[in-house]
């Protein structure tokens, strides 16, 4: 009866429809769009509070987005647990340093992969806050609410992403 929970993957249409319902549930129960990048601001602010509480409290951005453990913060630990459960139940959980596609073009060096991933992560965190949201907050929840800004932002995520991915794999990768 619960066999579908142990399947390796579901149709993206089914999983996507579920995410659509979940995004609406978040808007009803939490009165918030289901986004993921706010949690990183809150976590970074909490780390800042440990290092220098005075300096962190004075920063304007942390007055707008208060560093605390709340609904938006808990999304990220939740996602880690949910994805772990899903991959563990289907037997696909495995520890890996270098993704297969990356390794096939740029080799198996974990150091190179981590350096590029770190640079990507910094741009991603910086850009998400600059744009005021991420793929789920703007791309899904914002689009659901017919937000013009969110649809334009999502288009820019993919425009920038496609350009840099092509540069990485179709230009640098074939040198």
């Amino acid at each position, binding site marked *: 009866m619960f066999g579908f929970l142990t399947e390796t*993957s*579901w149709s993206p*249409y089914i*999983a*996507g*429809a579920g*995410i*659509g319902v979940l*995004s*609406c549930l978040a*808007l009803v*129960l*939490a*009165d918030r769009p289901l986004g993921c990048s706010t949690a990183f*601001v809150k*976590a*970074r602010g909490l780390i800042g509070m440990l290092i220098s509480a005075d300096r962190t409290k004075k*920063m*304007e951005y942390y007055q707008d987005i208060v560093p605390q453990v*709340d609904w938006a913060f*808990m999304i990220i630990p939740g*996602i*880690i647990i*949910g994805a*772990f*459960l*899903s*991959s563990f139940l289907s037997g696909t959980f*495995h520890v890996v340093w*270098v993704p*297969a596609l990356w390794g096939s073009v740029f080799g198996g060096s974990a150091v190179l992969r*981590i350096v*590029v*991933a*770190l640079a*990507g*992560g*910094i741009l*991603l965190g*910086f*850009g*998400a*806050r*600059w*744009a*005021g949201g*991420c793929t*789920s907050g703007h791309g*899904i929840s914002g689009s659901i*609410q*017919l937000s*013009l800004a969110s*649809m334009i932002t999502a288009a*820019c*995520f993919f425009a*920038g992403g*496609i*350009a*840099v991915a092509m540069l*990485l794999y179709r230009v640098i990768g074939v040198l």
Partner: protein
Amino acid sequence: MTTLAAMRESGSAQIVLGLLTGILFGFLLQKGGATDYGVIEGQLLLTNFTVLKLMLSAVIVGMVLFQLLKHYGYANSHAAHGTLGSNVIGGLIFGAGFALLGYCPGTVAGAVGTGALDALIGGMIGMLIGAGLFADFYPVLKTRILTSGPFPAVTVPEFLKLNTWVVILVLEAGMIGFLLLLEYAGL
């Protein structure tokens, strides 16, 4: 409705709800294939359309559902005014990071859950650094760039000066048509 308002205002209820929402989200992202580096990078290389199928399905279902929930008073619109300076520039910076990392802010956490250490050591730590940098630059960016070039409207129906349900009908038809086209093309 009073129970709903009380739930939204209860800090502890919201912490539990946030965790449960995250767990379901992570489960669906992983089952949908979106926590895999190859799937996400494949979307940006236009060789694998799983991410777009997942996102468009979510929007197709959510757009109608949200409008009904809003109509009956169960949900509020959080759509806000955007600007060229914030949404376009920020979106392009995000895109560059998206391609280099191969995950987005939600799927990076999902990838960690499936055992991807590049997502944990590179992605999550990078995101913390990036978010912190933005907090440092925020007072300067706020007055100079983030508010420049405001968009003419908050929502698409306001922008097109059309009835909300007409816009939804057209967008739904467009998204479903696009997905059918992808399947027809064998992508």
